[in-house]
């Protein structure tokens, strides 16, 4: 099996951290924890958003389901090694992948350096998007959180914290790295697996926290990616009876520069919860359309219940979503999506949440006949251990 340089780096890193963690019990404590969500969903339409298509028009096991395993080994007061494996559900499998894995060095309280597979903190809760227990929703608003497909990269990040005054904490992070993503794209005669190589990724984040009542998040990320896709030749040209095509070779396409801007805020005061975020994606190439998204969530905690409502939108979608010039032209491009949802989070015990949600979504296309209105009903149980 041949790996490219990024994969080799990633494998070496994972192997090194794994060996380090396995070798540690003799001299240091390895903390093992986990989290999970079991989700059940009914969607009245087969289309929801991009990679969430697997929901389908049915009640079933969904991508809201996940399981995570976290191993943390403090090596010294300054050094630690951490790894997290996460399995996400989809229509066909439940594969465990390395979510993140890094070695962390904190020479002081104001500086932490991480090296390894690190999370991209581009949106307010990007890093904890899979941790159901820490979020009010079953599914953080896809209108914002689907705008950036790069969850983590293999690289380095610097995190700095400043206690600017009692109760006021400022935190900044700069990171850079490389990586790969896998996509599936439909073409006439089948579906292709497209490997997107993240040639360069850079991100910067700034957070302000006031006494854990107010949190403000601002971020910028930029990426350059290449898609490795198969070039197709029609067998029909050779034999008219074979109306199919075959891959001739793998071509690499520069998908251009992607830039992501985000600003968000969270207010937790007494029983009130307010969360809001705005996100903007600017794409120079053809892989994904340009887009903007935003949401606002209001919640009020009553005993062990947190009822909440969310209004979300994604708009300004312009451009194509093709990885390959030979793929079919998109005839009805979605220009916007609007959602109004409500739900309740019930916490019977501290380690478990039970959530119920209903959401009405409208998708607007350039071809008005393709417009869609549909309902999404979701339920989930979150837990940590």
């Amino acid at each position, binding site marked *: 099996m041949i790996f490219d340089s990024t994969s080799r780096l990633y494998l070496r890193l994972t192997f090194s951290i794994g060996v380090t963690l396995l070798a540690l019990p003799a001299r240091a404590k390895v903390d093992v924890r986990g*989290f999970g969500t079991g989700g059940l969903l009914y969607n009245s339409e087969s289309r929801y958003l991009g990679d969430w298509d697997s929901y389908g028009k049915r009640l079933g096991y969904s991508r809201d389901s996940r399981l995570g395993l976290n191993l943390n080994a403090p090596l010294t007061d300054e050094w630690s090694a*951490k790894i997290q494996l996460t399995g996400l559900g989809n229509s066909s499998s439940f594969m465990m992948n390395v979510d993140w894995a890094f070695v962390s060095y904190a020479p002081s309280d104001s500086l932490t350096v991480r090296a390894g597979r690190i999370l991209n903190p581009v949106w307010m809760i990007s890093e*904890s998007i899979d*941790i159901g227990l*820490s979020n009010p929703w079953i599914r953080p608003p896809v209108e914002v959180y689907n705008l950036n497909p790069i969850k983590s990269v293999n690289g380095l990040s610097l995190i700095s914290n400043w206690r600017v005054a*009692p109760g006021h*904490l400022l935190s900044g992070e700069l990171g850079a790295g490389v990586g790969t993503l896998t996509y599936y794209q439909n073409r006439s005669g089948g579906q292709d697996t497209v490997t997107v190589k993240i040639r360069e990724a850079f991100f910067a984040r700034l957070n302000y926290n006031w006494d*854990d009542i107010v949190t403000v998040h601002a971020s910028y990320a930029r990426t350059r990616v290449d898609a490795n896709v198969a070039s197709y030749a029609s067998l029909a040209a050779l034999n008219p009876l074979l109306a199919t095509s075959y891959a001739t070779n793998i071509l690499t396409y520069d998908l251009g520069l992607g830039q992501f801007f985000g600003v968000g805020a969270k207010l937790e005061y007494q029983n009130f919860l307010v969360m809001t975020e705005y996100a903007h994606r600017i794409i120079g190439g053809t892989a994904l359309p340009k887009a903007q998204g935003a949401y606002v969530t209001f919640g009020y905690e009553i005993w062990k219940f947190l009822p909440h409502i969310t209004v979300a939108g994604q708009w300004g979608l312009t451009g194509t979503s093709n990885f390959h010039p030979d793929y079919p032209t998109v005839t009805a491009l979605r220009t916007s999506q609007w959602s109004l949802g409500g739900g309740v989070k019930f916490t019977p015990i*501290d380690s478990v949440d039970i959530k119920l949600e209903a959401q009405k979504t409208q998708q607007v296309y350039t071809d008005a006949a393709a417009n869609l209105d549909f309902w999404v009903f979701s339920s989930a149980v979150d837990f940590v251990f």
Partner: protein
Amino acid sequence: MKLLNCLFVSLLLSPIFARAGALAVIVPHSFKSQVDRNALADVFLDRRSRWDDGTSAKPVDQAEGSEPRNRFYQILVNRSSTQMKAYWAQMIFTGKGNAPHLVEDSAAVKKYVAATPGSVGYIEKEAVDSTVRVLLEFDE
């Protein structure tokens, strides 16, 4: 039967009317730093890992769901046990922080603090003895 009913009602209502005792924040006798509530909160929320004198801060928690633990976080950072669980879920599963060392009860906290330089814990005030030093008292 009346007596049994009275006993049952008393047991049901006792948590509501019980006057919780004061909590003492304890450190080893060797502890030298000055610490206020903000600094203490930072240590217990893993936002600060060293005391003013450079010693490594080693906070210790009591068992989840225990009365001293729930009251300690409610007083210190105004968070319920559910909110603290969500906080640690976010910190741990994003690789940002580690929860304090965990022991069973006040006796175990005292034993750990007495033997561990830089450690800090909380126990009921009446459980304090000469093996540890009281840093702060929460009588709310």
